[in-house]
Structure formats: C-alpha cells, structure tokens
C-alpha cells in the first residue's frame, strides 16, 4: 500500500503537468464553474471547443491513455489514466462530452466488435471528431431495460428500426449512437435483443429535447421511424444484445462513479465559505458545532468516495473487468451530493431558494446542483437497481422473484 506516486508515476505526472501547463490555463481553485450541471443546452460553439481540446490531447497522445496505440491510444496503465485525470481537473478545460463514446461505446466495441468495426469507429471517437450517444432507455423500459420494445426487423442486408428512445444525452450533437433493440418478440426478454451502432444522420431519426427540472435541456427523446441500419453495424450476434449491453452498463457505472471523485476540495471549500458568511439565529455558521460537524462529516464521506474509486482502480489495474463493486460508488455519491447541496442551501437561510443570477450566495451553484442531482441518482441504473446489483452479484443474495421469467416477451403484461 502506497498512496504516493512510485518514481515512474512521479515522472509521468511531471510530464503531464508540463504538457498541461503549455496547453491549458490553470483553474482558479475557488472557481466553481466545474460543478455546473444540466443547466444550459450545449451550443454548437461549445461542442467545437470540446472537440478542439480532445484533438489537442489526441495529437499529443494524451487522449485515452489506456487504449491500445493501434487506435490512437497511449497503451498506458489505469494508474497513468488516474494521474492524467487528477492533473487535468486542475485546469480550465471544456466539459467532457465524450464520456458516452470513450467510456461506454468504445469499450463495448473493443470487446464485442470485429477488427473492421474497431478500425472504423475507435480512432475517430478517440480524436473527438465525432461524438457518441446512447440509445438504451425507453418510455416503458428504464430500470427494466431488458423490457425495451424498439423493434428491429431484418430486410436484406439492412435492419429496419422502429421505436422510441428517451433520456439520450447529447443526441443533438452526436453523429453515432449505440442502440439496443428487440429483434425477436417470441423469446424471453433477455434473449431477443440485438445491439447496433446507428448513424444519427440516418433518415427517420428525429431528436427532440426534453426540458428537465433544472430548466435546461441536455437530454432528448429520439424517435426512430423506419430507420435503415446496415447489418455491418450490428455488434456481436443477433439475439446477443443483452450481453453486449451489460458490457456498456458495467463501463457506464465505472465512468459515472469514477468521474465523481473529483471536486471534493472545491465543494468543501464552498461549504466553508458559506459557514463563514451565513448566520443561524444570530450565530455565524462556523461557530455552530452542528455546522462544523456536518462539514467534517461531508468531507469524510467525500474522502471515502475518492479513496474507494482509487481502491477499485488499484484492484482493476491488477487485471479484470470493472465489476459490480463500482455500484457502491454510484449509490453513495448521489445521495451524498444531494445532502451536501441541501445543507448548503439550508445554511443560506431565507436566501436558500433564490435561483440563478438572483442567488445571494455562490452564483446559484448550490440550487443548480440540488436540482441536477436527482439525475445522478436515477441515470445509469437507479440507486435501487444498484442496491439489487450489490445484493445479488456482490453479496450473493437471492435474485428478485421475476414474474416475467421464461415467458415469451410478447406475452409479458405491460402498461
């Protein structure tokens, strides 16, 4: 056990810092803009900026540190990847709109794709030339993802797709999407799925924004009407879509969980600022034991989060796929951020529900965070689904009683 860099890691870190210094601007530690979530719909200018930064990283060999060099990666280690992320977070860089591609679609294609498919999609994904989105959830298939009913019918060398997807982040600026469909309604639900890569510019794809409780619109509904997908874009075999989806979902939990260890110092710093400014019944926040102890508790829990991510990655770096253990990070993180945001608003007293530019404290960041957090607790498998995963796959408890088990999909009651 050694929390410090090994000499090789220290050398790598120095190299990273040198490159970042030359190519990016250091972030003011008090700048809280990195915490902003789900506020404004992404503009084309912002997308270009994101793509530009990814290209700069790719040119210098810093994009996708763990990917093989054949696809433009660095062939580096998970620890090197952590080091780069730790350092990059200290600089002003555009938001990461490539997470679905690089964190989910990429590993899925790498695991299930043919050589040709990997060559076709991975290098441009890595360079940030194209953005990817994920067409999984449907109005009637969220937690019960395998209950999806978007239909795929074989037609010569193509498939014809009809259905509706929902909660598709970034569909409005993505060129490619990963799509899971039902190709057979006569077999039990997990067996009739087929997984595709879809060109979002295909005829019959319609993207409509969803306005969220934050007031912004970062997600979409995607309507698929007689969309043709060439059979060459099928990942893995027909009917094996659930196995492919699980690869995506494992990686999704890991990237959501892994990405959330950041920002602890920033959040706690902001809480301290509020405690030095706000009064409760005439007592300054920091002079109240209740306030101090809450801040300490949140710091301790944030620290657990950061260290647990590192511990998981430490285990992974010795080999193996991301396991169900990453569910614990996701379960703990959502509720923690929700509690912290609610506490920060409480500290603000009567000003706690002021919003946006009218907010007295923190430029409205806490209110924005508070409204955005429910998405973290629901997306990528709701907290309750994660608890089932922990209970069943990590601890070996009995699976849920499933009334739809072994029944042809078309006969399962729905509504």
């Amino acid at each position, binding site marked *: *056990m*050694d*929390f*410090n*860099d*090994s000499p090789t*890691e220290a050398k790598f870190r120095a190299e990273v810092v040198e490159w970042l210094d030359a190519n990016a601007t250091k972030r003011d530690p008090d700048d809280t803009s990195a915490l902003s979530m789900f506020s404004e719909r992404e503009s084309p200018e912002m997308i270009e900026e994101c793509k530009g930064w990814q290209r700069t990283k790719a040119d210098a060999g810093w994009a996708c540190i763990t990917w093989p060099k054949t696809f433009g990666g660095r062939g580096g280690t998970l*620890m090197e990847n*952590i080091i780069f992320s730790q350092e990059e977070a200290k600089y002003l860089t555009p938001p990461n709109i490539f997470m679905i591609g690089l964190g989910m679609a990429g590993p899925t294609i790498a695991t299930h794709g043919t050589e040709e498919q990997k060559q076709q999609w991975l290098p441009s994904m890595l360079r940030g030339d194209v953005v990817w989105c994920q067409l999984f959830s449907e109005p009637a298939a969220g937690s019960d993802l395998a209950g999806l009913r978007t239909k795929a019918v074989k037609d010569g060398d193509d498939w014809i797709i009809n259905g509706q997807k929902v909660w598709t982040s970034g569909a409005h600026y993505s060129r490619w999407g990963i799509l899971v469909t039902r190709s057979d309604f006569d077999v039990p639900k997990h067996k009739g799925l087929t997984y595709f890569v879809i060109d979002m510019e295909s005829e019959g794809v319609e993207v409509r924004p969803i306005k969220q409780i934050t007031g912004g619109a970062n997600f979409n509904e995607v309507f698929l009407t007689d969309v043709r997908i060439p059979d060459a874009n099928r990942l893995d075999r027909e009917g094996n879509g659930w196995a492919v989806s699980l690869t995506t979902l494992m990686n999704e939990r890991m990237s959501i969980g892994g990405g959330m260890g950041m920002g602890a110092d920033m959040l*706690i710093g902001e809480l301290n600022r509020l405690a030095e400014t706000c009064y409760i019944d005439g007592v300054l926040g920091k002079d109240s*034991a209740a306030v*101090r*102890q809450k*801040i*300490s*508790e949140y*710091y*301790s*829990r944030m*620290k*657990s*989060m950061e*260290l*647990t991510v*590192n*511990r998981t*990655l*430490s*285990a992974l770096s010795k080999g193996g796929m991301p396991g169900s*253990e990453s569910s*614990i990070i996701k*379960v*703990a993180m959502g509720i923690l951020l929700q509690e912290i945001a609610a506490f920060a608003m409480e500290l603000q007293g009567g000003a706690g529900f002021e919003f946006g530019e009218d907010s007295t404290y923190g430029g409205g960041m806490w209110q924005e965070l508070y409204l955005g957090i429910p998405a973290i607790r629901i997306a990528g498998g709701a907290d*309750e689904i*994660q*608890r*089932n995963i*922990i*209970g*069943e796959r*990590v*601890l*070996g*408890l*009995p*699976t*849920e*009683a499933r009334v739809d088990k072994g029944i042809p999909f078309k006969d399962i009651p729905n509504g």
Partner: protein
Amino acid sequence: MNFQFDEDQDLLRDAAQKLLGDKATLEAAHKHMDKASDYDKELWSTMAENGWQGIAIPEEFGGAGMSYLDLSVLAEELGYHYAHTPFSASIFGAAEAIIVAGSSEQKSTLLPKIANGETIGTLAVFEQSGRHDYAGITTKAVGGKLSGIKLPVSDGLCADIAIVAAQADKGLSLYVVDLTQAGVERAELRTMELTRKQATLTLNNAQGELLGEEGQGEALLDNILNRTAILTAFEQLGGAQRCLDMAKDYSLERYCFGRQIGSYQAIKHRIADMYVKVEMARSNCYFGAWALTSSEADIPEAAAVSRIAVCDAYSFAAQENIQIHGGIGFTWDANPHLFLKRMKMQEFSLGSANLWKEKLYKALANKAA
C-alpha cells in the same frame, strides 16, 4: 500508487483468520461474559507465540519490526472474530504511547515485555466527567506522585502498567504508572460490554515515571490518540464486516412467507447499504494505515476520517444486524448484541464521532493555513 494490502499481508490475514477462527469463537465470548476473569489468557499466549503483540514494535525493542499495515491486518481480524484480550489497550494504546513519547531507555525497558505479551499496558487518560478534551483531566502530579481517579480504563483490571495523564507544574504531562503498587486501587467499572472489562483506577500518591517532557502532554496525547484511533478503527472495521456477514448469512437461512428473507428488497437493500458503508469506511481506514506507515503529516486528518467513517459504518451495521435477525436478535443467547455493545465501547472509549468531527475541522483548518 497502490491502495491495497500486498500479498504478504494477505497471507498474514489468512493465518490470522485461521487462528482466530479456531480460538476466538462467539460461544467462548458468551461464556466469558459471565466470568469474573479479565480476558482470554490462552488466546493471549497463543498470540504472543505468534509474535502478534510485537508485530509493529521495532526489532531493537523486542518486536518483529514489521509495519503498521501488518498490525492493521491483525486489528481488523481481532475485531471480526471478537477476540476478548487486552490487545488494543496494550498495543494500540500503551505501546504507541511509549513509541511516541518514551526515552530510548524507557523503550528498552518497557517495549520488549509488551511485545512478548508479558506486560499488559493500557491508557488511563480520561475521567469521571466523560470529557474527551484535556480540560476534563484533574489528576494531579506532584513530584512524580499522582493522585486522582481515572475511568473508564480499558482492561484496567488486568493491566500491569498504565500511561496516565496528569496535571503537573508545567501543565498536562504523561506518566508510566505501575498498577501493582500500593498507591493504586482498581475496581471494576460496569459497562454494557462484558467481555472487555473496564476499570476505575484510584491513584493515591502513586509513583509515576515521566513519559516525554513535562508539560507536553497535550501534543503527545494528540499524536498518541490519533494513532490509537487508526488502529482501533481497523478493529471496528472488522466488527462491522462481521455484522454484515452475519446479517447476510441469516437472511439466506431465514424464510418468511415462503421465501428467504434476503430475497426481499427491504432486507436486500438494507444489507447493500451496510456493505456500502463498510467499504467506504474501509477506504478511510486504509488511508489511516498508510499515513501511520508512511506519511506522518497526514495522520491527524487520516485518523479523523477513519474514525468518523468507521463509527458510522459499525453503528449502522450492528444496529441493522439486530433488526434483520428479528426477535432472535434481541435475545441474550444470540450473537448480534455482542457486536452492538463492542461497537459502543469502541465508539465512546476514544470519543464519539462528534468529537472526531471537531478534530477533523481543526485538522483541515491547520492544513489550509
């Protein structure tokens, strides 16, 4: 960077699990609760034969000179298996105090006997008021003679020596006190935990030997208690893990409405929450062990976050373990209450989580400054 124990430490864990699995059973703990004897003497000797007491004590002072990571592994297993020995009082408390504050002569005299289990030490810092701040310490030291009342003193009935905090001319100071001398009276102090006996020590002009400089007691104690807290946190972590395992096993064994109770989300999710808290606490404890081994400057923060996280995890796990066991969990003959009581003993004997939250707040302010 590596955030895990290494292979040798995993082997040590396997060996500890095997030994404690055989020797430290919960049946034995039940029997022990009704007895007047202080601790499991047979286990204590076996541990000494295996060199456990001295595992992290430097070789020059009679120990094995291994690291605090190794000691942490043992601590976790002691907590898991509910060993009832004075290990934590003697090794996490007294030995650490001597390592931190002792002169080389004191180390040479005292540590070898602690390392081989011959001497049992303990900390006697706090008093009747229950205050864990130093202002609550009223025991006086006049010319090396100590008078006052210390409680609760862990394993104070069986200990041979105690590290006593007392107010001297130059302020709070630490002393090594031989508990077998005439000026020391000991009486059992009843607590809810019946397998780890606590004592009240009444010092009446008892002879003490200064440990560290006179007047440096606060700074020394801060350091000693941080170190004790980290090692104790591993013992607590082991206990929390045991509660989780007990709850899981019972939920697989017990049927209700024709199904194993672990198949109900109400139970399954509760056990998942136990697991999440235990794993989160485990991460903070590892931070503590690493700080103790390799990064002195991080000890105050690491001790506080270990302690805060593990008190929360153990308290949740011990309470919910009883709930998941249902009625049987409320009976004296069942095992869950052992851990509930041990949990509270470990929480309060080093100060509640609230105290450690205050300590963390100060540690972070110092770090920022």
